[in-house]
């Protein structure tokens, strides 16, 4: 399979008065055509910043400090707005967390679809109407809603129409930032199933950011776990769920109560994620890690390939933790 995206050594800084804060630190990954990559982590781990950096949507005080984002061979870092807008929507589209804020409240859904289409080429009115109706049907909304305004739609329908809008040009990559977090479980599940169906049918690649690991367990091909701006673990989704290697990944998985099986007491992960401006020395997770040894507080681990997954943990790498 060919690569649609190659991110290498990407770092993002927030330039603040009290000094620069590195929110994304040396992140590299590739994405194949038609692949679904899930990115999970807690608030402040840099997952949304990473996503914005990939889509080239960062605004000051955030700035890409190093690295490249190669999309279909072109490095997006450093492109002008004009060059980027040729790619946006057409080849790469973004679905934001809150559709209520992402959609224009004073324009009908159809008018917003029209704007996006007119930004790329000169489609006729019929072409616009036909394509708009087609993508809405694709996500299961009656095309009569092209005349509706965002407030007239339910939360689920708004998210669906955002996804429909992202489908207007059959892009190669769709970037999604917690698109289901405002929805109920039933609506959430149905939207996930639909995203996956569309993806398998149309063949676009997906980067899906969420804080809810269980949500993507059945949908993503590969899973990337982020902690404090870095990748802690990256591997096949099923493998990571079945045998998580990084203690943080383990902790996240054990923090979910289940509706099945025996009721077991859970502990969660003690402490809080670190302040990125005051990172602990050594491994960034060691203050919260149940397996930490003295060395973890001194040596910062690299991301190493342990066959089944890439893992950033000293004790996994030297085999002292099994």
């Amino acid at each position, binding site marked *: 399979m060919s690569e649609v995206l190659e991110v290498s050594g990407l770092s993002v800084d927030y330039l603040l008065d009290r000094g620069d804060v590195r929110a994304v630190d040396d992140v590299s990954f590739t994405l194949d055509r038609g692949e679904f990559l899930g990115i999970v982590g807690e608030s402040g781990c840099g997952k949304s910043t990473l996503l914005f950096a990939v889509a080239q949507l960062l605004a000051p005080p955030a700035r890409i400090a190093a690295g490249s984002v190669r999309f279909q061979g072109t490095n997006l870092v450093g492109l002008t707005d004009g060059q980027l807008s040729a790619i946006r929507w057409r080849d790469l589209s973004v679905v934001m967390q809150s559709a209520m804020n992402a959609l224009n409240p004073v324009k009908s859904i159809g008018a917003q679809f029209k704007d996006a289409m007119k930004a790329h080429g000169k489609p006729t009115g019929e072409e616009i109407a036909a394509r708009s109706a087609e993508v809405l049907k694709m996500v299961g909304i009656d095309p009569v809603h092209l005349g509706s305004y965002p407030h007239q739609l339910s939360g689920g329908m708004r998210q669906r129409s955002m996804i429909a809008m992202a489908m207007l040009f059959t892009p190669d990559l769709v970037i999604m930032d917690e698109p289901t977090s405002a929805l*109920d*479980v039933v609506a959430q599940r*149905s939207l996930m199933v639909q995203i996956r169906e569309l993806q398998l049918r149309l063949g676009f690649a997906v980067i899906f950011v969420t804080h*809810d690991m269980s949500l993507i367990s059945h949908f993503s091909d590969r899973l990337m776990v982020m902690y404090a701006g870095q990748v802690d673990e990256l591997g096949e989704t099923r493998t990571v769920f079945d045998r998580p290697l990084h203690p943080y990944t383990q902790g996240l998985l054990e923090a979910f*109560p*289940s509706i099945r099986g025996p009721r077991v007491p859970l502990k969660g992960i003690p402490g*809080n994620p670190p302040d990125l401006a005051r990172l602990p020395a050594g491994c960034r997770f060691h203050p919260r890690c149940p397996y930490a040894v003295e060395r973890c507080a001194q040596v910062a681990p690299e991301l190493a390939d342990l066959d089944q997954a890439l893992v950033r943990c000293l004790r996994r790498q030297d085999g002292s933790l099994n």
Partner: protein
Amino acid sequence: MTATELLRADHLTRHFKIGGALSRRTLHAVDDVSFAIGEREIVALAGESGSGKSTIARLLARIYSPTSGEIYFEGTPVSRIRSRRNRLRYSGLVPMVFQDPFGSMNPVFRVQHGVLRSLKLHRRELSGAQRRDEAARVFDVVGLGADMLERFPHELSGGQRQRVGFAQALAMRPKLILADEPVSMLDVSIRIGLLNLMAELRDTMGVSILYITHDIASARYVADRLIVMYAGQIAETGPIEDVLTDPRHPYTQLLLSAVPDPRAPLSVAAETDRGEPPKVIDPAPGCRFRWRCPLAIEKCAQVTPVLMELLPAHDVACHVAQAQASAAEVQAPLIKETS
């Protein structure tokens, strides 16, 4: 229930007028809902957004008054509480913890401000020094150090702020805490700590909690009983393990099938249900779930189902489930005779 009854909602109903001044349309946020909460009990109130669960919390907190129906707290009708003193007493016994730990605290005051203020209002017998001692004590109970009292809200993490919310509630020596989605805005790794705290408050201090959530798995983790709401009405209620292992209402079944669980295999029948909440504006009689229900029969469009006890302490408002249960009852003696 074996527990002594603490609070009872009796045919509780709350309607809202919507539209302009001339509009006659009403939104039935909560319609004829009855339930009880015992002492030392965590009751989970689950349902999708718009199902009326937050309205119930606000009715119990007396932020709204019911359109009809009554709430009894320790046997006394809450609508009869009129004097300022008694209203304060009630809100101290039944305090609320809010969803948003970032919006529920005044950013210009230290976190002790809220605790000390509610102590001053609700426990007037305490001196200034006693109030500070009491604040330190409740902070200790929720797992925060006394040094936290001096901090400003922005210095605290989301999980710590929610603990402050519970400390504030505890300072008033409550009997029932109304917790409206208290963990939904927290990170996954932090949530469990708060859920464990809720269980601990019940077990060690005997506080009851109404835990409002859309997360069934977390409800199962802490709650004793579950109430499933749909479109302003109770669809199913019972001891939580019984409801989860043997859900009888089709909505409960749908809800449970949608809970993401990495440990379970993906059900191949990817349901076509869109998860659209129903409109409860001027509803006609009939079951409100019938448009989404795979089992709906003709009766469902004509008669609103009422809660019936189908299993011990396990009530379901569904015509089909009720018919199945009574059919099983008729058959049961036959089996006995033949065996």
